């Protein structure tokens, strides 16, 4: 290393220190650049979808069934919107009570020893690839029978349960201990305390979890690909009888098509889906902030 000239004033940055400052600026600059990059990707994806999808969106796109025929132009995705809504609604009806009950068990009744395997099971379910869940549900409900919207709902419910259970148990833990104690002291039974005091106190947070789970389920494609992908082009809510058309399948099929008209329909459907998901996430975020304020302010 070079010897520092003792006559230079200390305010002049030289040699080693100058190098350290350069490295510092470079690394901090690249962190900032990484953050800008991530936001840029989100913006680029959303702009692509909005730009190409917006020209598709019209009233008839939302309320008409698709035109029939290869590379047919016109028509809409009403069948897929209705089908997706039916599949996700049935999935929510199954996952919501199940997830909330698990959360109640974890926060109100479990000991650390019994909670551990349940939390592990929820973690494993949460990390399980959706295609694996889809193959499992295929083996249970579709093999030897045929695809149904219900099979897709069942797979989506398995995906939703750990999400709902986790947010719900976090929210139940936020409900102050004193409320429970006060309720017990007044002689209120345990189940009335849970149903009347604890759950209402955490309602906003529970709904947040449900909204996020619905937003996640609405875009899940692997389950519907295996369980509800062979369908006609008519609007139906016969969840138990047939495979239902749905938005992720429309996007998936049309994205792999060679026809520009199909691509256009895929962008339109993608815009509908992404708008639903982003609005769901924003609503959930707002609800969560409100709930936190409510519980913390108490």
């Amino acid at each position, binding site marked *: 290393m070079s010897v520092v000239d003792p006559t230079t004033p200390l305010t002049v940055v030289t040699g080693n220190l100058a190098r350290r400052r350069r490295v510092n600026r470079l690394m901090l600059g690249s962190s900032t650049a*990484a953050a800008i990059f991530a936001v840029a990707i989100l913006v680029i994806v959303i702009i692509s979808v909005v730009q190409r999808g917006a020209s598709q969106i019209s009233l008839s796109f939302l309320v008409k069934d698709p035109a029939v025929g290869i590379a047919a132009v016109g028509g809409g995705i009403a069948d897929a919107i209705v089908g997706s809504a039916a599949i996700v609604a049935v999935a929510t009806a199954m996952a919501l009570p199940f997830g909330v009950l698990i959360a109640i068990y974890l926060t109100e009744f479990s000991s650390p020893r019994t909670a551990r395997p349940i939390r592990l099971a929820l973690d494993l379910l949460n990390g399980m690839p959706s295609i694996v869940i889809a193959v499992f549900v295929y083996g249970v409900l579709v093999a030897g029978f045929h695809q149904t919207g219900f099979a897709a709902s069942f797979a989506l419910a398995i995906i939703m349960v750990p999400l709902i259970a986790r947010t719900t148990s976090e929210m139940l833990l936020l409900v102050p201990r004193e409320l429970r104690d006060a309720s017990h002291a007044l002689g209120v039974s345990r189940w009335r305390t849970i149903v009347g005091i604890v759950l209402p106190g955490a309602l906003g947070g529970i709904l947040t979890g449900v909204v996020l789970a619905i937003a996640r389920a609405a875009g899940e494609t692997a389950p519907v690909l295996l369980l509800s992908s062979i369908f006609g082009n008519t609007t139906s809510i016969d969840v138990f009888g047939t495979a239902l058309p749905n938005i992720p399948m429309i*996007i998936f099929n049309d994205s792999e098509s060679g026809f520009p008209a199909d691509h256009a329909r895929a962008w339109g459907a993608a815009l509908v889906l992404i708008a639903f998901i982003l609005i769901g996430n924003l609503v959930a975020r707002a609800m969560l902030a409100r709930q936190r304020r409510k519980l913390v302010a108490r």
Partner: protein
Amino acid sequence: MTSATPAAVSLSPTRRLSDRVGDRLIVVITVLAAIAAGALIVLIIYKLVDGASASVSKFGLAFVWHSTWNPSAAAGVRNANVFGAGALLFGTVVTSTISLLLAVPLGIGIGVYLSLLASGRVGAIVGPLVELLAAVPSVIIGLWGILVLAPFMRSTIMPALHGALGWIPIFGTPSTTGLGVFTAGVALAIMVLPIMAAISRDLFLSVPSELKDGALALGMTRWEMIRGVVLDSSRAGLAAATILGLSRALGEAIAVTQLIGAGSAIHANLFDTGDTFASRIAEQFNDSTGLWTSSLFYCAVILLVMELVINFAAQVIVRRFERRMGLAAR
């Protein structure tokens, strides 16, 4: 019967029947729900192994590395109805590696920015935006990948890499469509990135500020403080985050199916087509029959095993880390 005995009555003289039944019932119902969650895992494992049994007994463990995948059942065809997942193992490893190589450093950088550099107001906007990226469904990433990313890769990135680094076999001749292993890996990186970023931000925020201030007081630059204190004390957490990102990349089926081009050979060239366990299932499941379906179940079993191993590895890392931190705090 027993409830009529004086002792039982005196224990809870005022409790109504509905309360007694309700208290018992809510415990039973919630316990059943919790047990059902565990039972579901067991049922999933059982059902997948059951579906794969035909393929397992025919091909055994060699299925994992043999690379013939021939669903053709016509008589006289060589290797007809023989399945092996070697090419899928290769594709899965390569796409996941690409996604982690891109997403881990970027995610850590975003974590540093959000936890240490961003001013409150900017961070409050950028943080949620990065999290929103995780909410974009994979089928939309795939659609965007096919129609926007792949043509861009084909016209710009791939020729540039091929031109500059073409002497390395992995940067070979670009595919005609832009679809391939590399494009799929980039799309996976986009999905892994928000996970990495969110976890590393939370990790860095939890580093005690005394340590950070102490390092700065000793005359370190901010980057030296970040490298020496923040990153160093978060090593285990970052390893766990990487593992969780890996689990996301391994299991993603849809976007990879859309972007990888459904090849069945093993190439050194990253710009060529390939396939992963998950994408092979997504592509072929609806057309498959018999032993073919069973082999796809086998692929699902392999994915499940990978996921279980990864999850346990992450838990072990976090637990060891927590123990160490616990000792350090005492």
